[in-house]
């Protein structure tokens, strides 16, 4: 190996943690861990030792805190899905060459999910995506897409779900139709590929915390793996 370059961007505080985790992961990617969660927890436990007796608490809060607040989960999920979609858009052109075709873009997203995620993770994200699709279309009808733009932007993402033109639909009923078609298409993919094929292969540990985002560090690590395959 000639060298390694770790790059992160788009966040302000707490990046020392990300840098330490990624630097250590270069030497020890926790290949012995059976799940990504375990790998991430192990990586955390090394770094959080500095917190002494509170290390276990810091680690568990950074891993799990977001899951304990159901009322905030949907908001967090929406915001992060947008961030994630923004990141994903950068991959579409490279991997699928479908920049303007909305249905292809959605399917590309699911394909990436199938390739890079566990079935459970893919399904959870699909649900959020479907809900977001529907609410976004309602929002689109209620007012110009500018409003949707305003609320689902985050950080340095200049493109949004609505900006991308991905949801080129004109009514809530059409959105529901798209959603059911989308789910049916996903299920057919699931059948075709087999659930076993959807399990994560290997451990791609890549932590990219967006603006000191300890609550969803786990989700983000999944997402960066999904979108960039850990190879930024």
């Amino acid at each position, binding site marked *: 190996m000639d060298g390694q370059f770790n790059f992160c961007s788009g966040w*302000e*505080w*707490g990046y*020392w*943690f990300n840098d330490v985790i990624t630097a250590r992961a270069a030497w020890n990617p926790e290949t012995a861990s059976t799940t990504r969660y375990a790998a991430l927890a192990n990586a955390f436990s090394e770094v959080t030792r*500095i*917190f*002494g*007796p*509170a290390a276990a*608490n*810091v680690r568990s*809060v*950074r891993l799990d*805190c977001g899951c304990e607040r159901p009322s*905030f989960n949907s*908001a*967090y999920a*929406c*915001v992060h899905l947008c961030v994630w979609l923004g990141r994903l858009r950068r991959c579409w052109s490279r991997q699928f060459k479908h920049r303007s075709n909305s249905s292809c873009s959605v399917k590309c997203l699911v394909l990436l999910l199938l390739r890079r995620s566990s079935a459970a993770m893919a399904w959870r994200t699909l649900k959020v995506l479907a809900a977001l699709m529907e*609410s976004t279309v*309602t*929002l689109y009808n*209620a*007012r*110009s897409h*500018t*409003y*949707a*733009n*305003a*609320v*689902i*932007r*985050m*950080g340095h993402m*200049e493109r949004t779900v609505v*900006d991308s033109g991905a949801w080129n639909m004109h009514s809530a009923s059409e959105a529901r139709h798209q959603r059911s078609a989308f789910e049916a298409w996903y299920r057919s993919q699931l059948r075709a590929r087999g659930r076993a094929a959807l399990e994560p292969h290997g451990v791609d540990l890549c932590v990219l915390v967006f*603006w*000191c*985002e*300890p*609550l969803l560090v786990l989700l983000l690590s999944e997402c960066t793996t999904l979108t960039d395959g850990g190879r930024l």
Partner: protein
Amino acid sequence: MNFAEFTNILLQKTIPSTALPLYMDFVDGMNVTAQRTIQVHALYQYAWGYLKKSPSWRTANLNTAAAALVAAEEIVAEREQHYRVSVERIASYRENPTVYPFTYLWTAHSLYYFWRDYSKATNVSISTLTPCFVRTSTPRRLWRAIDCRRN
């Protein structure tokens, strides 16, 4: 919302004094992210409720968004007390070696993203309709970046 219970659970006193600044970095980061989430969610509700909700309901959401912005201001001001260099050096709007016209913590210092989204949700004008609303990059700067790379 704040993470008071989070800080209670973790019992700051059990954290070694050497690690406390790092821990407080986490706490501030979590708090400001929580405020950001509250703001985005409230603005989303506000915009979504245009045809479906009463004006008072929308106003309440707008107030929530505004309160989150104010809370974020306080958090940022507190965190800036702990920067190891002057705020002007790393969080000001000035020419610097990068292609950006500001230094890297200026967006946090000014709450640029908070204000941008708040403005876009509450104003209807030609400028807010364009995707270039209060953009941080201009064609001139992009050209400068390309030019620098070329050289």
